[in-house]
């Protein structure tokens, strides 16, 4: 009896669906933030990276 109660939530389809929806929601939020964070950080990265490179190399290989 106790075992049945313990096992019941693991196969509950509503709970699995809710968990999957929660996971997808998290994935969406984090990927949205990551894409924008990449665009926002790119110029800063370019500035910092190029401040460590000699000028001939920048001219030859581009800024990024």
């Amino acid at each position, binding site marked *: 009896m106790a075992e049945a109660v313990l096992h019941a939530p693991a196969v509950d389809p509503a709970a699995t669906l809710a968990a999957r929806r929660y996971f997808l*929601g*998290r994935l969406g*939020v*984090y990927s*949205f*933030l990551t894409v*924008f*964070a990449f*665009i*926002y*950080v*790119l*110029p*800063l990265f*370019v*500035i910092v990276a190029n401040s460590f490179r000699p000028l001939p190399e*920048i001219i030859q*290989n*581009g*800024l*990024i």
Partner: protein
Amino acid sequence: MSEAIRPAEDVRRSSLRGRLGQALPIIVLAPSLVASFVYVFVFAIWTFYISLSNSSLLPSYGFVGFGKYVTLWSNTRWKIAYSNLFLFSGLYVVLAILIGLGLAIAIDQRVRGEAIWRTIFLYPLAVSFAVTGTVWAWLYSPDAGIEFLVRSFGWSDFTFRLTTDRNLAIYAIIATGIWQSSGFAMALFLAGLRAVDPDLVKAAQIDGASAYRTYRKVIIPTIAPIFIAVAVVLLQFAIKTFDLVAALTQGGPGISTQFPANYVYDLMFQRGQIAEGAAAAMMMLAALAVVLVPYSLWLVWRRRRESGHG
């Protein structure tokens, strides 16, 4: 009530002090009020008079009339600059608000490392428009920026040249402006989202509203005043745009990204045509008034309505 019981002298002294205390805010504010009056109204009227005068290299006060406005509006470069101003302001304000709101809502979903995300999105605001324009000019540049990078990966006919195409350069400026300012919108929206009464949200959830519906019908109407605050601040960024264009495209290619502020600077300080420059500046003021006068009227109307109900 208590003053009535006091002796007469005491009443007089305290009323003198009371009157002084009442006048104190006005006395303290007077210098800045006078200064703002002089700098806003007197100088605006002076500029208006200069725009009607025969000033060239230096201001002079011979009255000519509205001829400079006619000259101004017969110039294609000015027409492009003025329409660019409206295109830029509209897209910049709307998209910065939408992106800022999106980022604020995403951050408000109890994400991990919230402070890091917030810092990433807000740091562009600490960078001046001149630096923003310079860095993005490098990134947009076909010889060194994103196009060069992608081509060096092997995709040899990849093209990404916004700033060298005269139809697209204005959108490069808009995108860069949004990059700079949407973090500011995000910060204000996030503060607003945090201030929404959690009971309202809970009530909506109990009623079975989906997350989308909760945001659209409950949370966003609650933070509606923030939209107006953000729009007004961004709009005055947009109308005085000068350094972003000067650093990013210098008004080019050709004359496709001329802006009124650059045009005024050019006329006044490069070509020595102060009267026409002043006329252009008055047209910028008119563009600002088109937006700000209805806004302030709306504020007055709303205050009246609220006090009427109260």
